[in-house]
């Protein structure tokens, strides 16, 4: 493999043998690399490789228990976020560190508001806010509550927050995982601008092309160990995958199985309307994968939730296998064979404090009981079967699912619905925050389910994903269905339909 590259200038940040362990299990060891001012450094690795852990150490959110972090060559103790902030490090973590009940303006200057004798002077903050927005080209309402923002906008708030502190080193943990294409592009552009002005950037992402497109150098982690630190230009996606996984990975080459014309319609919706979507009609057939494309906020998630009975509809009808569903509730929809993988694992998907096994068992509890008592044996074997099917690693039965890495959590989320395979699978962002290997895994799972006769509706902000998986694609804009394309569709066509 490539040899370690040497830096042209003195490093702004250097790691020397950094390590961290939890309960005696080492999740990070002997990490040593240097980053030059203005460099964009990509951090890569599979789920659970230790990327977030490393960033959290830099951000002062956790403390390393081995090695040293050096700023401008000086060893520095980072024992709290305050220390890191004082050294000009800002961490934008996967779970955004914002206060949802407060305004954008307040969040941007969180903890460091302009003030006169302790009294906040919002006018001064406002001026600085406008300057920052103009600098990076964001369009944010300073008085909006963060809770009301879509994720992409919230992400922008985080970036402004980092800029407002005048950070020298910006650490971003999967910043684009939840963003749509246009937003991703915009974000990457902002990062390039910042780097050009001398800000050092460390970025974690599972999108290898994206990293290759932006990073000057990359570091690959595997099982907490540093595998390589090299120039990005020396690599392709394939070579990176080999480094990350340690062997070849089957490429994303499968396409959906051909759909027989005789396949019956399983789910049919007519004129679904509520306060987020307008007159949405669609149908999916047995074994078909229907993709929903659109910009963030176009109403894709709302469509899935409405179909699933999770949100009320003010007009419209849904029928399953030709039988209309009256007054749809989630329970009824599940009984009719529907399943929903929601967009946010943490908020809507998993009960983080409970074990993986309990989470997987939850939707199908009713099927394994005698007089209300759980048949533990049946549950154990059902969970084992599913765990093997989706390939969650580790002793999942007794660990709170919140302690798993993002990829494994996502697999558990799928597993919930696979105990009794659904007739209709509604999947919102199937691979958010998932590594390349797991992504292939999940894609194969979806394709296999469809091949076995499940009707699937998949929503993804990654257009490639939608295009690769679907038989047919609907494009939504502002809550309406505006176009339909059979697969293979043209990327440009979809984009233009989504925009206007």
């Amino acid at each position, binding site marked *: 493999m490539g040899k370690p590259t040497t830096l042209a200038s003195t490093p702004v940040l250097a790691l020397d043998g950094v390590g961290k362990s939890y309960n005696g*299990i080492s999740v990070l060891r002997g990490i040593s690399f240097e980053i030059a001012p203005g460099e964009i450094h990509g951090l890569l690795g599979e789920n659970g490789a230790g990327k977030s852990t490393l960033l959290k150490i830099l951000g002062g959110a956790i403390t390393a228990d081995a090695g040293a972090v050096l700023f401008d060559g000086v060893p520095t103790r980072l024992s709290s976020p305050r220390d890191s902030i004082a050294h000009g490090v800002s961490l934008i973590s996967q779970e955004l560190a914002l206060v949802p009940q407060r305004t954008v303006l307040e969040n941007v200057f969180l903890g460091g508001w302009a003030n006169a004798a302790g009294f906040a002077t919002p006018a001064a903050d406002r001026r600085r806010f406008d300057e920052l927005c103009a600098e990076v080209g964001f369009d944010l309402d300073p008085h909006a509550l963060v809770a009301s923002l879509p994720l992409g906008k919230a992400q922008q708030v985080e970036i402004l927050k980092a800029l407002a502190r005048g950070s020298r080193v910006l650490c971003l943990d999967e910043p684009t995982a939840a963003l749509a294409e246009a937003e991703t592009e915009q974000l990457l552009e902002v990062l390039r601008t910042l780097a050009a002005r001398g800000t050092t950037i460390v970025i974690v992402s599972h999108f290898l092309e994206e990293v290759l497109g932006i990073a000057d150098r990359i570091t690959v982690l595997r099982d907490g160990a540093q595998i390589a630190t090299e120039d990005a230009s020396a690599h392709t996606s394939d070579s990176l995958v080999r480094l990350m996984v340690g062997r070849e990975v089957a490429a994303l080459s499968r396409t959906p199985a051909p759909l027989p014309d005789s396949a019956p319609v399983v789910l049919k919706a007519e004129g679904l309307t509520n306060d987020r979507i307008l007159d949405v009609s669609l149908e999916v057939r047995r074994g078909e994968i229907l993709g929903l494309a659109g910009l963030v906020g176009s109403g894709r998630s709302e469509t899935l939730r409405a179909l699933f009975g*999770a949100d009320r509809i003010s007009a419209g009808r849904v029928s399953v296998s030709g039988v209309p569903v009256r007054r749809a509730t989630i329970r009824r929809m599940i009984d009719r064979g529907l399943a929903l993988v929601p967009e946010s694992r943490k908020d809507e998907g998993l*009960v983080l404090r409970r074990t993986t096994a309990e989470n997987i068992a*939850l939707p199908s*509890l009713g099927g394994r009981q005698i007089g209300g008592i759980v048949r*533990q044996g049946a549950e154990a074997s059902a969970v084992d079967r599913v765990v093997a099917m989706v390939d969650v690693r*580790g*002793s999942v039965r007794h*660990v*709170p699912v919140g302690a798993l890495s993002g990829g494994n959590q996502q697999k558990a989320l799928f597993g919930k619905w696979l105990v009794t395979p659904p007739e209709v699978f509604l999947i919102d962002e199937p691979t958010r925050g998932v590594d390349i290997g797991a992504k292939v895994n999940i894609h194969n799972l979806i394709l296999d389910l469809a091949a076995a006769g499940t009707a699937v509706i998949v929503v993804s902000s990654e257009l490639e994903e939608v295009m690769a998986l679907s038989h047919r694609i609907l494009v939504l804009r502002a809550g309406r269905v505006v176009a339909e394309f059979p697969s293979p569709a043209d990327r440009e066509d979809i984009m233009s339909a989504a925009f206007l």
Partner: protein
Amino acid sequence: MTTDTATLPRRRRVDFKDFGILGGLLAIVVYLSLSTTTFLTSQNIVNLLDQAVVIGLLAVGATLCIVSGVFDLSSSATLAVSAIAGVFLTTQFGVVVGFILALAVGAILGTITGTMIVITRVNSFIGSLAISIIYRGVAIVLTGGAILSVTSDQLDAFRVWALPVLDGVSGGTILFAVTAVVLGLVLWGTTFGRRVYAVGGNEEAARLSGVRTPLIHISVFAINGVCAAAAGMVLASRAGSAQPSLGIGMELTAIAAVVIGGTSILGGAGAVWRTVVGVIILTVIGNGFNLLRWDTTYQQVVTGVLILVAVAADSWLSRRSRRSRG
């Protein structure tokens, strides 16, 4: 296929966290056994259990509520109304029917509380506080402020929960033990229990998994109502009568016992056995003070310190043994 080989922290079968609170109890018990001759007598243990009954019943019911993510501050008012109804119905229909109907009244009141909170979607803490004020008022209206007694020929049978029935063990103790075991099993081993944990841990995730979360909440309120009614009937059995002020303030002691046991007030985690330990800790502290003949002036200070130490130890151990990303 993925090669996520980073090993997950294996779960120790015997969890440190579990020892936190048991260790605290053990320490107190050992100390009292060594420093008094009376603590470890069978009579004292029988007494101790009997003293734990009322708070115990309330606390076990509160455990289900708290695990499911709600508070029921109306439980002691439910206790009073149910006991008043129970005494009245006992005078009408006899002891057995009276007791069963009292439990039914408790279930109905709990269901009403739960339904109100689910429908109005107010926070359960303040909602049940308001409802508790209403129920206390109802208790006063029902009795006209008087005390309601059972007839004197019923008194002996009515006192079954207060008197020794089995090797000196009181009827109340047996009632509590049965309730704790049954609800412990319900929470641990039934589909209902699983749903209770799920709703408490993440209501939206549970809802999207097809759990009818309002139904779960109403059910735990109803169960808590039954527990409160049982506690009320034990109190009434001891006094031979019921009155509107019965059990005032006990809901807070019950919640304290639940939390001392280590059940999280955030919901989604906890167990009935933990609550039983919490209740026994509280009872033993009071009992120990009296047996040691310590100046009762200092009792409250020491009680507070012991609770704080127990809870802090539990929180420390649980952080040490299972760090979660939260």
